[in-house]
């Protein structure tokens, strides 16, 4: 494993150098909270592991994305023919993404890039992107990544893992994309592989100790009966407090549902896709006006069953939750996925 040492005094210089070949995305403070966005010149990613309100999923999957456009001008030969809009898919690097958020991208990929169908918008953005993660030395109290198949130093989905070692970063090179990014940034000073592996491991162990991996249990989810969980009586009380806003789905790094909308103005037509939320009744409203998930309890159940049961059964790749803790922090009524996960994991069907 190649490890590069980056002195922090060279950090911003390297980022600037990389801008010649990459669009740089990263977390920055805006008003009172952190957002992931495309950084302007002289803007640098915040490297303090601050939990952004919204996850970086929007870099590949914008909340509102123009995908197709057509002219309605009938004098044009190609009028009313929807065509893909020009989007900048030149190389991008996401710097300072948390390991769990990078894993989330891999889970979202299961939906957008399948054997049967390749979503061109998401996949083109994905292929253009290099993921430069920042290991989480001091996990927040909301971090339950270790229970969800990720962790503060997890490498899945990353091209580079940066580890903050006070006056320098150690950069674990995890892919060719990662190698290319570091070279383009002028970060080429190789560290002693054994020594740095040992140091990284020490910091990793320390970080992992800060998370109680036993607090959230998932090991029995797979063996539970889908229908019994679906019919469980706990959903009613559990969903009582839910106000059916879309906060949990919007802040979630793995919620991938979207809605398609056409808008016209004058002689122009545009097709958008927007994040959608299974918390909204409109999400499932049929054209016939029938709504299979008309009740709040059905919608709340859907979200957690999808994350913690349907996904588990369908893909056999763990839960569709990476344990970032965003929904736990931001739910206005304190619906806590950690508790729901435990409730589902330990559920025994009521005796008839």
């Amino acid at each position: 494993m190649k490890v590069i040492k980056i002195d922090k005094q060279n950090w911003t210089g390297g980022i600037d150098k990389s801008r010649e070949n990459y669009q740089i995305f990263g977390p920055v403070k805006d008003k009172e909270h952190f957002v992931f966005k495309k950084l302007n010149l002289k803007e640098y990613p915040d490297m303090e592991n601050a939990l952004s309100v919204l996850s970086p999923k929007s870099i590949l999957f914008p909340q509102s994305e123009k995908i197709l456009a057509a002219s309605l001008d009938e004098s044009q030969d190609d009028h009313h023919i929807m065509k893909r809009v020009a989007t900048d898919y030149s190389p991008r690097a996401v710097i300072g993404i948390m390991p769990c958020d990078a894993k989330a991208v891999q889970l979202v990929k299961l939906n957008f890039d399948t054997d049967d169908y390749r979503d061109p918008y998401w996949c083109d953005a994905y292929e253009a992107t290099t993921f430069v993660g920042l290991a989480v030395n001091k996990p927040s109290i909301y971090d339950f990544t270790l229970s969800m198949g990720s962790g503060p130093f997890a490498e899945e989905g990353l091209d580079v893992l940066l580890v903050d070692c006070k006056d320098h970063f150690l950069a674990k090179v995890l892919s060719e994309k990662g190698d290319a990014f570091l070279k383009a940034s002028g970060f080429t000073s190789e560290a002693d592989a054994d020594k740095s592996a040992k140091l990284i491991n020490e910091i990793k162990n320390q970080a992992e100790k800060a998370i109680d991996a036993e607090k959230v249990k998932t090991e029995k989810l797979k063996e539970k009966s889908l229908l019994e969980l679906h019919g469980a009586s706990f959903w009613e009380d559990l969903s009582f407090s839910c106000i059916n806003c879309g906060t949990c789905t919007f802040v979630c790094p793995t919620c991938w549902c979207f809605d398609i909308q056409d808008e016209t103005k004058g002689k122009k037509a545009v097709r958008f896709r927007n994040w959608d939320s299974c918390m909204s009744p409109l999400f499932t409203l049929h054209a016939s006006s029938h709504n299979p998930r008309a009740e709040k309890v059905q919608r709340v159940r859907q979200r957690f069953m999808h994350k913690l049961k349907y996904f588990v059964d369908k893909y056999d790749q763990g839960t569709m939750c990476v344990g970032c803790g965003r929904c736990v922090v931001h739910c206005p009524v304190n619906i806590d996925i950690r508790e729901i996960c435990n409730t589902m994991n330990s559920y025994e069907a009521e005796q008839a």
Partner: protein
Amino acid sequence: MDSLTDKIRTLCTGLLKDGKVDMIVGFKKGTIPMSSCPCVARTPEQAKELIWDSNCTLNLANYLTNRKEKIGVVAKGCDSRNIVNHIIENKVTRENLYIIGVPCDGMVDKRKIRALFNDDITLFSEENNKLFVETASEKKELDKQDFLKNNCTTCIHRNPVIYDELAADPVEEQKIENRFADVIKIENMSSDDKWNYFNDLIKDCIRCYACRNACPLCYCPTCFVDESNPQWVGKGQDINDVRTFHLLRAYHCAGRCTDCGACEEACPMDIHVRAFTRKLVKDSCEIFDWEPGLDPNKRPALDTFNPDDPDGFIK
């Protein structure tokens, strides 16, 4: 605060045991520091989970809409005013409610408190208007008065206006000298400045509609933004659509908003959405001498017509 919790539990346990109500709507302790969770208690056992503290911020009238059961509800000043609104607007009947009024000395603003620390808050407790807040590396003792939610600092109805029983003695109401100073500041801006101010205010809006859904006034079966046939408003992030949502939401609350602050509390993006509704609170107060939610027997300002109604705002 603990004595309030005890009193609420005792009252609610009694109500459930005696069969006076089918369920209690109150708050239980949240799973993270500085949080609470609206909950329902259907048995005396469940009533033991009820709590009261300075984080019981949301408005429980929101959970009564269209319910048919006999409900005991724990209500601070603003909740009680929204219950009055609900009764006036036929969303619930007075007979079906048993209101446990809680005189309130304000809720705390968790954002203001979080901003004082670098780490996550791990512990929060309170006693006699002092707040004790801890993180892994720091400990602070704060005066609750300095960390009230903004709407609580201008509240003049801390005591429930309608109740069957009070959980404590009434508190002294605040005397606020210039209750609408914040609104006047915006009113005095030039048109351009106002435009920029409100555009900047909503620039982070993700249209999750938490503000709408936390609001007890927003109970339309289908909200105008969710109407799909015809569709009134674009669904994307176009600033015109975002602005339309916020302006219409606010205007639907005109003469009804009690400034309970649930909208702002629920917003994940920390948007000061009350900047819209506050102006309407001020206008209904000044133009129509109307404060919503005080008397179930009076029709609201926008629900009545009088030939003498002031019309100076028609230009």
